[in-house]
């Protein structure tokens, strides 16, 4: 139901005013997108080349410094970009108090997944 509230149309449109921000999010989403292009293509190409590999071949591949570096770079950029993109999706469709919680949980999940992925990659690369 529509709330009954006496307010001028301009007052309603102005709302809480401009946040005077938004550029940072928009710009970082673009920068991480551009930064993802190369690691993503490298990753896709690696999958094509190594999808049938056994455990030792895969370990040897990931232990090469260039591949370790690219994998860590991919994980950082991927989850950074995902967090920014999913934020927009949540803000677009969730209009209740659940929005704030969804945003917090989503960001936490992205951080946690990036951390687990990076640690796993480094363990394979640097471990015995």
């Amino acid at each position, binding site marked *: 139901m529509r709330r009954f509230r006496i307010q001028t149309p301009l007052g309603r449109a102005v709302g809480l005013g401009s946040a005077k921000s938004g550029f940072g999010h928009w710009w970082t989403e673009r920068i991480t997108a551009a930064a993802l292009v190369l690691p993503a*293509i490298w990753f896709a190409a690696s999958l094509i080349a190594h*999808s049938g590999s056994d455990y030792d071949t895969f370990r040897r591949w990931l232990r090469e410094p260039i591949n370790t570096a690219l994998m860590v770079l991919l994980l950082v950029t991927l989850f950074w970009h995902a967090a920014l993109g999913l934020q927009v999706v949540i803000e677009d469709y969730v209009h209740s108090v659940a929005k704030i919680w969804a945003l917090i949980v989503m960001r936490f999940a992205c951080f946690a*997944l990036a951390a687990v*992925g990076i640690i*796993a990659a480094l363990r394979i690369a640097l471990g015995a």
Partner: protein
Amino acid sequence: MERMTTKRARPLSPNIQIYRPQLTSVLSIANRITGVALSVFAVVLVIWLAAAASGPAAYSQLQTIIGSWPGQILFLIATFAFFLHLCGGIRHLVWDSVRAFELKQIYASGWAVVLLSAALTVISWLLNLLIAGHS
């Protein structure tokens, strides 16, 4: 105060229920859906790395799941989602630099994104079969 005398709230005219799907809106929602799907596949990537880090047993178990029929179908979807989001994302970056905004360019680049993504999906699966078949 005409609002006070109105018997009922004014109805909202339909939006998505009637608005014609166009290449503009369809590719936009496709970019969003593939982005969300790729976020889910990113979780699979992390599980894969964690499995590989924990030892050969977990790694081969995961390889079996990925190699199964449902796993392969999900992987095919992921491949197409990946290329659609990649090509669509590049299209968006071009727009963000205030280029290719003529309708003709919007439609041509849209169809190019669809065709290129489909072609890249097919090519990468053929390459994969070729390489996997030789190893």
